[in-house]
Every structure is written in structure tokens, then in C-alpha cells.
């Protein structure tokens, strides 16, 4: 062994280096694991109003049986059972992130529409999902209250309203009939023989909402 010395300066330097590197890890300042997208991006997404979908548009899509919409009610269990939109799934806000609802939120196939009494809770849910970078989520502007005031119980426009108001009103009235609201003027004259039948509401096919799994990341297999 030419160098009989045990600790050659080069080895000293190397061992010092590896210890310093490992020590560096310890001294680096810790910070909370950054989860989700950057705050600036989240802010700009949260401010832009394009996430809103109006009640008329939603009514139109429900009536035309658009298969790609998925209604999610973020209110708590009680108010969900009391009344909600047809075919909606209940994900209470405080259970938004738990495991089994993830299939509904984190998917690219359905257009998910969140709604609550008005759009406040739905907005909060939307912002949290946006932070986790879930795609194509929308919020029903005004929530169920707005839905009630516009679709279920539309206001009769007064005379001096423009023509578009009348069209809108007639659309909304038809929509409300679709949802089962009956109007007095529907009643036929007494002489009509035909047994009066409420407008046959197309029974909304019970859409079994299978949260189609977005192709999950490739499983990390390993082992020797």
C-alpha cells in the first residue's frame, strides 16, 4: 500500500463533503408541503366568473336530457333530502375531500355543476377543487333560490318589458311545467271530453351516475 497513512487528505475532504451535504438537509428551513396549484393562479381562477352557469342554461340542458351534466348538491344532508334538483348527488361541503366522492369531482368526462342554497357554499367548494386542479367544474349562479325564482316560479313580465322578456318567461314556464309545476290556465274548458292528463313528464331516466374513473396514474410497481 503506497499510502500507508490511514487518512489521506483526499478522503478527509470527501467524508467531510458527504457529511456536510447530509447536514445541509437538516438545516434547510422547513415549510408546509405545497399542495395544489400556486396561489396566484388560484386567485385568478377564483375571480373569473366564467365558472358560473345560469339557471336557464341548466334547465335547458336538463330538459334536453344532456347526459354529460352531473349535479352535485354541496348542502348538508337535511336540506338535500328536503328538496333538491332532480338527479343530483349530495356531497356535503365538509366531506368534499373524502375518498369516495373523489370519483365524482376529479374526472374529465362529466360536466360537474355544484350548487347550494345560493352560490356561496358552491363557490367555496369550487375554489377548493380548483386548488386540487380538478377539471370542468361549474357553479350554478344563485343556487336553488335563483332556480326557484326563475324556473319553478317565473315572474310574469309586465307589459313594457321587451319581447325577449316574454320569450324568456314562456321558456321558463315550459321548463317549470317540465318539472311538474301545474298552472291554472292549463285546465281545459269543461266541454273537453278527453280526460285531462297532466303534461306527461318524460320520466327522467334514473341516471345511475357512475363516476367514470379518470385514467388513474400508472400504478408504481416495484420490488426487486
Amino acid at each position, binding site marked *: 500500500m503506497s499510502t500507508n497513512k490511514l487518512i489521506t487528505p483526499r478522503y478527509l475532504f470527501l467524508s467531510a463533503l458527504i457529511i456536510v451535504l447530509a447536514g445541509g*438537509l437538516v438545516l434547510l428551513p422547513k415549510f408546509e408541503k*405545497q399542495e395544489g396549484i400556486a396561489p396566484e393562479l388560484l386567485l385568478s381562477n377564483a375571480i373569473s366568473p366564467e365558472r358560473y352557469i345560469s339557471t336557464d342554461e341548466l334547465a335547458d340542458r336538463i330538459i334536453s336530457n344532456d347526459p354529460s351534466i352531473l349535479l352535485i348538491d354541496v348542502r348538508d344532508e337535511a336540506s338535500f333530502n328536503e328538496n333538491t334538483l332532480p338527479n343530483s348527488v349530495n356531497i356535503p361541503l365538509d366531506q368534499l375531500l373524502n375518498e369516495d366522492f373523489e370519483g365524482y369531482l376529479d374526472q374529465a368526462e362529466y360536466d360537474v355543476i355544484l350548487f347550494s342554497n345560493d352560490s356561496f357554499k358552491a363557490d367555496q367548494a369550487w375554489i377548493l377543487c380548483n386548488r386540487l386542479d380538478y377539471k370542468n367544474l361549474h357553479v350554478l349562479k344563485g343556487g336553488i333560490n335563483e332556480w326557484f325564482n326563475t324556473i319553478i316560479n317565473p315572474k310574469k313580465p309586465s307589459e313594457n318589458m321587451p319581447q325577449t322578456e316574454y320569450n324568456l318567461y314562456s321558456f321558463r314556464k315550459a321548463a317549470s311545467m317540465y318539472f311538474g309545476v301545474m298552472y291554472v290556465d292549463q285546465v281545459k274548458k269543461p266541454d273537453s271530453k278527453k280526460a285531462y292528463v297532466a303534461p306527461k313528464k318524460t320520466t327522467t331516466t334514473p341516471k345511475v351516475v357512475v363516476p367514470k374513473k379518470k385514467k388513474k396514474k*400508472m400504478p408504481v410497481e416495484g420490488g426487486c
Partner: protein
Amino acid sequence: MGPLIPNEIIPYEWNNIIAILIGIAFGFVLESSGFSSSRKLAGVFYGYDFAVLKVFFTAAVTAAIGLYYMDYLGYVNLGELYVQPTYLWGGIIGGAIMGVGFISAGFCPGTALTAVAIGKIDAIVYIVGIMIGVFIFAEAYSIFQPLYEGSYLGNITVVDYFGANPYWFIFGLTVVAVLAFFVTDIIRRRVKKVFY
């Protein structure tokens, strides 16, 4: 970005190609570090050449430090890496059998492959032995089954199991490694030289 292929940053088709490339580098480094000669490997047990310990420990420490730096800087997400399942007794007894196998044959599968590559007949016999061993294990699986599936502790790391702070643990590991290198150098001076 984390592991690239599982996050589909690199398409899955590249997986096997990268496997071959990594294998080539792995084989090259193993062979050049002298792991194709079983007597150099066995040196770690008899003290005349601690190459295995040095290479092994440096590799583990470098990889651990590297991973945790990349995790800190956000290039890798440690949560997505494969952590092998820990079967306590399976690991211990399996390791014991492997230890005896290691000392009797002088090879472990990775290094034996490099020896096969350079034409060592005992390595070829060793690989055939491994295949026989696997065959025996499979045939007699019912005997090994309770051990194979028992005492499952999950895919746990030292951090979850002992609640150790990983950074301090790695620092300790590095210090132990450097001490081990130093001590093994001393031992090597005292042990009779063996030319292989």
C-alpha cells in the same frame, strides 16, 4: 414533477427502454467496481476487501440524500415512490437464508449477472441455482405461505414506523457510513492479504 413515467410526463412505452438503459449503467458500474469477481465480494465477510460495504453504503447514502434534496426542491414526490412492503419475519428469515446463500456462493443476483456477462461459469451455475430455488419455493409454497404473508406491517418507511425525522436519520446514516469506511480500512490493514 415526481416520478416521470407514473405521472405520464414520459409516455409509458418508454418504461422498458429506460429499464434497459438503467440496466446497462447498473451492469457497467457493478462490473467496473469489481463486483463480477465473487472473491472480491466475499472479501466483505473476511475482511480482506470491503468493496461491497463501501459501494453499497455510498450508493444508499447518495441515493437517500439525493432523493430527499429533490423532494425538498419539489422535483420528486416521495409519496409516489415505491416503498416495498415490510413483512417482518419474512424479511428476517428470507434475509438469513440469503445471507447464507451469499456467503456460500459469493454472489448476489445483480452481481452474478455481471459475472455471467464476462463468462464466469460459477455465476451461470449460481443463476441456475436461483431458478431452482425459486422453483422449490413455488412448489413448496404452502410451507412458506404463513411466513410469506405473515407479520405484514405495510409499505412503511422509517419515518412512519419510528416517527424519525428523515433528515436527521439520513445525517446519522451518513455519519455511520463514514465511520464504517474508516473502521473497515483499519481492519483491512490487519487482515492477511488475499490476491484474487
